[in-house]
């Protein structure tokens, strides 16, 4: 098996007396979608923030392309090509799609904003991801539907030669049609060769789009492997009980052998 693009080995994180993550191992291979499942409080968000540079792990290693890296800030993560789309999307409603996609990284010409060049680049990114339902990329984000907003947020995250994309509950609060639109977009990110991680409660969506599944229970990784090794019922058991009632051998937990 080729080495995963991003590897987490023995990640520990605690906040005061609360141990949020216990020795978590996780692989995010390029060109695959990893679904991260877990009940509330399982540590999905903390794990995501450790990769995104919001929290720094207390112990453990993060390997990027096999090299150990330290991700101390969102800027460090961005420098490695790791982008996160949070559930609240962080789009400015009053700005249009182009302005949002380039927010903080505007292109200048003669010290003034180079709107035309930014508009062309944004249009290219959107059409390469086949986000084609927006009527005009100069419309304010306030006028977009939920799925379109999610698409813009994803496009914004991946237009900077990203290698890893973390999506936090990308389909929450979306209707059926819009969910399909976002799942298609996630598949396209995978086809572009990105390592994608989808954090979701919704097992239907996870099973539809994921190549691999990882389940967190009370801060520990209780199961990780190809989606073929899982079924919904077992995944739910892993999420709720950590899989204690069953033998864990059916789904091998990836240990540190690759590290």
């Amino acid at each position: 098996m080729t080495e995963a693009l991003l590897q987490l080995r023995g990640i520990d994180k605690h906040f005061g007396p609360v141990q949020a993550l216990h020795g978590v191992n996780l692989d995010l291979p390029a060109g695959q979608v990893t679904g991260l499942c877990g009940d509330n409080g399982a540590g999905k968000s903390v794990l995501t923030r450790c990769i995104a540079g919001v929290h720094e792990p207390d112990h453990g290693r993060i390997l990027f392309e096999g090299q150990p890296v330290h991700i101390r800030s969102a800027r460090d993560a961005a420098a490695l090509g790791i982008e996160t789309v949070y559930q609240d999307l962080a789009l400015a409603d009053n700005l249009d799609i182009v302005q949002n996609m380039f927010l903080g990284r505007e292109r200048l010409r003669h010290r003034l904003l180079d709107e035309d060049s930014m508009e062309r680049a944004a249009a290219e990114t959107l059409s390469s991801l086949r986000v084609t339902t927006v009527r005009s990329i100069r419309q304010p984000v306030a006028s977009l539907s939920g799925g379109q907003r999610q698409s813009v947020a994803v496009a914004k995250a991946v237009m900077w030669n990203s290698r890893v994309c973390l999506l936090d509950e990308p389909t929450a609060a979306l209707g059926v049609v819009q969910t399909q639109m976002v799942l298609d977009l996630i598949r396209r990110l995978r086809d572009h060769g990105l390592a994608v991680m989808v954090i979701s409660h919704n097992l239907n969506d996870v099973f539809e789009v994921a190549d691999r599944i990882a389940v967190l229970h009370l801060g520990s990784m209780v199961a990780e492997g190809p989606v073929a090794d899982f079924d919904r019922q077992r995944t739910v058991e892993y999420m709720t009980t950590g899989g204690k009632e069953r033998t864990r051998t059916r789904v091998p937990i990836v240990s540190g052998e690759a590290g």
Partner: protein
Amino acid sequence: MASINDPLATAIPELEADPTSAADTTLDIPPELLAQSLGEYVRGWLARVRHGDSGVLPVLLAIVAVAITFELVTPNNSFLQPSNLVYIFQESTAYMVLAMAEIFALLLGEIDLSIGSVSLLGGVIAFKLVQPPPAGANLPWWLAIGAALLCCAVIGALQGTLVARLRMPSFIVTLGGFLLLFGILVLVLGGADGSVSVSQSDPNQSVIFNLDQGLVDPTISWIGLAVVVLTASALIWRRDSLRRRSGLVAQPTSLTAIKIVLLAGAGVIVVALCNVNRSNTGTIAGVPWIIPIVLVVLVASTILLQRTRFGRYVYAVGGNPEAARRAGINLPRVRTWGFVLSAVTAGIAGILLGSFFFGQLSTNTADPGQLVLYAVAGAVIGGTSLFGGRGRIVHGVFGGLVVGGIAYGMALLGLAAQYEYIVTGCVLVVAVLVDVLSRRGGAKGSGDRD
């Protein structure tokens, strides 16, 4: 499938793959983005007006309503005369520039209540510095204005720092600043009835006196107008044709032409009005200096807000501070500079105000409390949102004109100041109501958001 960079395809509804958004989005998009012909543009614009998002239309209607009302109710229908209109414009310029100052704070989602005091203080400092010793420093007019605006900048930076770094509510910080600076202002003026004047006869002081009062020679006015209109038309035309050539969505050519014609027409009307002899006895004709001055402030602020990175960040911080923070924008710096710009622009307004009052500044001729309310009223009436992120500097020009028109009309009717307050207060509340309702309408447009 509709391709995103194909303007023709985006306008065709059958290609809309997302049925839930089709009905909602149509009305919120600026019409020039979809329209390929003038007819489509007009239809799109009408749809947006019906939807409550009408841009500067309400304030233009308000200007017409103010003009017609006062023309009808004033004795001998004397409101709409060239002399009155020019005078209203001269009076309104201070309100316009004050409204522009307030817009910098409003766009950030903050409010600056101190600008009434800051503006008068800036004016008084400039006026004091050109006085001969011992009262003043006999500075050249440009140095005096520069020093006064620098003082305003420092005040703005202090207030901005309190708001931006310590996250104190701007409402309280600037209300405190208003009172504190009002006190300092009275001290500088040497008492509640104190005043400071610049004279028309002194060559140095007369420059400041003439900022509002001075007139441009009629012939030069026409030449200046031609230069401004030609430059603006060339820039607009070039931008649109560049966009068309590079395959981006642009306005229809006919619309570009209509805009240029409207611009030229408005300019011709203003210059022609100003060049009518306004005096009963001698000759007073020409464009007041204040018009090009306001134009320069307007263009400079508009470029700053619409075409620079800083301007983009102002809108982003006002629209969604969290998004701005995650995009790596330095929020405290943007907020602090917003308050600096607000204070400096207010200082310009104060100097213009003194010039309008025939070179005299005192707290009796211009009440700081009234000025700040007129500034907020002008900005909001012009169409700038109190909730941040929405508005343009040009809104200050239109809003200031409404405020100035009402003030002058009430004075022409011989009504006391209390009625002026009542009417302006009502107009302000109606403007905020429009702001709130249009926000609610906008939120309805994307119903599946949380």
